[in-house]
């Protein structure tokens, strides 16, 4: 995972500020739009998951150490948790806007 979790959090903060600003076009804000945010954190989680899979497979072959496997799986789990938490927050913010009385 090249980008750290704090990057994801920063991106999330950006997303929230964008939602809070209201009426502003997402494409104009610095730091990319919401789709990019979701894509990048999704890719990070996927990468961590792939690494965990690789380590597990090589552990079955007897090549990797059990400690390495556990660390890789823990990393993947944390990355996935980050993605899920950020997604939940963004979706709930979106639903909040939908509920706005017109």
């Amino acid at each position: 995972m090249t980008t750290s979790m704090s990057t994801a959090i920063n991106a999330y903060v950006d997303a929230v500020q964008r939602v809070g600003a209201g009426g502003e076009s997402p494409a104009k804000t610095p730091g990319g739009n919401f789709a990019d945010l979701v894509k990048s954190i999704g890719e990070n989680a996927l990468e961590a998951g792939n690494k965990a899979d690789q380590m597990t497979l090589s552990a079955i072959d007897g090549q990797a150490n059990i400690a390495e496997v556990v660390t890789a799986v823990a990393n993947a789990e944390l990355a996935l948790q980050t993605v899920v938490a950020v997604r939940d927050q963004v979706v709930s913010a979106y639903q909040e806007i939908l509920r706005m009385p017109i």
Partner: protein
Amino acid sequence: MSEFQKAMQIATSGMIAQNVRIRVIAQNIANAESLATEPGGKPYQRQTVSFKSAMDRASGAEVVKVGNIGVDRSPFGRQFDPGHPAADENGYVLLPNVKPLIEMVDLRQAQRSYEANLRVIDVARTMVARTIDLLR
């Protein structure tokens, strides 16, 4: 790579190093009574393991690696046993220089070090998970 991930990587390297140490200790204990096969030959020589710190280029973290596995050059024990196939011309058999007490203390030390590294991983993981929980 975040600092937490680095911490976990370093702790993992410590666990792997202790794995090697446990392996060497097991070898010493198992061979504590391995004698020579020919008259006047040398019995099993105790092995030692040393660690060194190494820079992991990918993450910039200072991890621990196994330096080298050497042999203990302390003198062998001797026992008078003329009937033994490994006895020399004076009837003495050389015994391995493995001291079970020292091996046991080493084993305990390896166990403690492994547990300490395990704890580091546990704490780092919990800290990250608790931070993510803030979003929920």
